[in-house]
């Protein structure tokens, strides 16, 4: 009884094991490529002899090896175009064909575009491609099937197409499909040998198309993401710049408010020092050289402190402008005459466009701006140089924003403006310093030579005129200050 049970058990185990081994053997066989979708009239494709098992094995090994390398190369593609070229080159290298072409399909515009090709020379160009809706590519996209054509002239089902327009007569056309979306068509054309394309070759083309589709979609998404990231970066940079300028503007306002509050308290003691110095100057003997020198230093320091207070007060008074239509050149001219004594060894050139219209400005404030810029230019040329003042009308190419609380006063695109450029051939400003020149109290001049408020005040004045002030500079070559102002709208002026 027990022996019988053992025998039954052994037989059962043997049967189960045998079945399992049979399955595993089946699984170890290389997977057969799915046969291509046969065109509707396959009669014109000559029958092919069935390949032997050895031939199959060699072929599959070669195909697997090729697909492995192709996949590796494809994954290293740097961009969409790179991936397209990798696909057509791989098809051309592996198969005995004259040319390989990849067309991309845009489902929104319903357009096919030649994305890449190998062997598409010798008189063939994009114009020679037939890529309309009734083309073979259109047929493949519409049917989402791989098409094998052994002799185009004999293909009766392609009757609607103008076959004479096709330069290639034998080809495999495979759609590139990713997640049910057609991305394009891969054509491998004109076999070099007399034999028609085999099913194995069709299978390779289909695999290239499948892998290519995944990569193209990934690359496209990556490029879209990169583009979006670049756009976001640009938007962030613009926002940061605007924020910096707003902070700067608020800082200037705060300084102005502070200045007006403390000016009285500071100027009173300065006044006392000045009166005290004046009294001592009258009473001390002219021979007392040292006391007089000391008084001179005290007097100059008090004046310096006073100049700083005056500059600070310009912030608090910056809201008051007395606007009148003025000719900008007469303001430039009068400002220039005020710094005439400083223009030693400096050649001044005036380039003024004839018939400049008037601008609505506060003459005194604008004079202050020009004097400031002229003095900066003069101080930048201690050994002499050339100062050029160029004034002209210009049409703006694009809209410009004035970064201030008065944002509605921006310049519009195509708006006509008056530009005054003040250029020197001085020492120039380093890139690092150029970012800070409009900061209050920033100066590169020595102690007592500059308050560091000139350009801040100038910028404030120009902004109040709804204008722009920019400074461009190259170290060792010189600096150019550009003032852009609105033209007075009053035609009577």
């Amino acid at each position, binding site marked *: 009884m027990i022996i019988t049970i053992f025998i039954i058990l052994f037989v059962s185990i043997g049967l189960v094991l045998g079945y399992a081994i049979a399955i595993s053997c089946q699984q170890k066989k290389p997977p057969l490529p799915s046969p291509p979708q046969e065109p509707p009239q396959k009669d014109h494709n000559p029958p092919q002899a069935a390949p032997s098992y050895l031939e199959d094995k060699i072929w599959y090994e070669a195909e697997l090896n090729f697909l492995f390398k192709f996949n590796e190369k494809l994954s290293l593609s740097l961009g969409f175009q790179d991936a397209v070229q990798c696909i057509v080159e791989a098809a051309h290298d592996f198969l005995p064909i004259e040319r390989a072409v990849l067309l991309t399909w845009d489902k929104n515009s319903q357009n096919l575009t030649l994305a890449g090709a190998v062997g598409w020379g010798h008189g063939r160009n994009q114009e020679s491609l037939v890529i309309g809706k009734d083309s073979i590519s259109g047929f493949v996209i519409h049917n989402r099937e791989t098409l094998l054509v052994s002799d185009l002239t004999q293909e009766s089902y392609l009757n609607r197409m103008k076959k004479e327009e096709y330069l290639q007569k034998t080809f495999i056309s495979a759609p590139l499909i990713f997640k049910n979306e057609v991305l394009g068509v891969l054509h491998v054309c004109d076999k070099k040998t007399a034999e028609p394309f085999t099913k194995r070759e069709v299978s390779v083309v289909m695999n290239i198309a499948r892998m290519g589709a995944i990569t193209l979609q990934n690359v496209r998404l990556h490029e879209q993401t990169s583009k979006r990231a670049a756009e976001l970066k640009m938007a962030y940079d613009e926002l940061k710049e605007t924020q910096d300028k707003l902070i700067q503007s608020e800082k200037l306002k705060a300084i102005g408010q502070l200045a*007006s509050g403390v*000016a*009285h*308290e*500071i*100027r*009173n003691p*300065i*006044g*006392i020092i*000045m*009166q*005290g110095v*004046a*009294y001592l100057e*009258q009473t001390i003997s002219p021979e007392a050289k040292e006391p007089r020198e000391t008084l001179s230093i005290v007097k100059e320091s*008090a*004046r310096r402190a*006073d100049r700083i207070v*005056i500059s600070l*007060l310009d912030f608090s008074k910056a809201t008051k402008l007395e606007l009148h239509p003025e000719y900008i050149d007469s303001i430039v001219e009068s400002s220039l005459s005020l710094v005439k004594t400083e223009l030693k060894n400096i050649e001044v050139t005036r380039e003024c466009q004839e018939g400049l219209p008037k601008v609505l400005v506060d003459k005194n404030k604008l004079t202050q701006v020009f004097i400031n810029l002229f003095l900066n230019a003069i101080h930048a040329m201690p050994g002499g140089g050339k100062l050029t003042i160029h004034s002209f009308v210009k049409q703006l190419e694009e809209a410009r924003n004035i970064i201030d609380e008065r944002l509605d006063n921006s310049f519009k695109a195509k708006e006509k403006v008056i530009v005054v450029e003040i250029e020197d051939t001085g020492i120039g400003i380093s890139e690092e310093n150029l970012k800070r020149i409009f900061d209050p109290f920033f100066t590169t001049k020595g102690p007592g030579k500059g308050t560091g408020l000139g350009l801040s005040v100038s910028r404030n004045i120009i902004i109040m005129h709804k204008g722009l002030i920019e400074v461009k500079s190259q170290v060792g070559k010189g600096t150019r200050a550009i003032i852009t102002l609105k033209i007075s709208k009053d035609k009577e002026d």
Partner: protein
Amino acid sequence: MYKKRILIIDDEEGFCNLVKKNIEQTGEFEVCIATNGEDGIRIARNIKPDLILLDVVMPGMDGADVASLIRSDEGIKDTPIVFLTAIVKEEEASSQASFTRGYSLLAKTATIGELIACIKKNV
């Protein structure tokens, strides 16, 4: 020789004393000092100055109030007034500023030469 009388009304005593010394050094003027508005008006009524140097910002009665009371006082209403201020710049002081329209203005940090010239022009 008759010396013209100048009255300085300013809460900064040190400033007043030094200005007094500097003006009197010319030998042409006699200077009195008041360190607040009320004293200033009282002294002005008594001495009837030829010119008043008046500070704008003062605790209590400020320069504008003092000027208004002087202008309404029959005995001293025609006395020339020069405002001394720490707020305006020299170039603004030389022109007519809006808040003291009709009066001369002089910055407190003006030199003694400018101060004397201004007095002589208005006295």
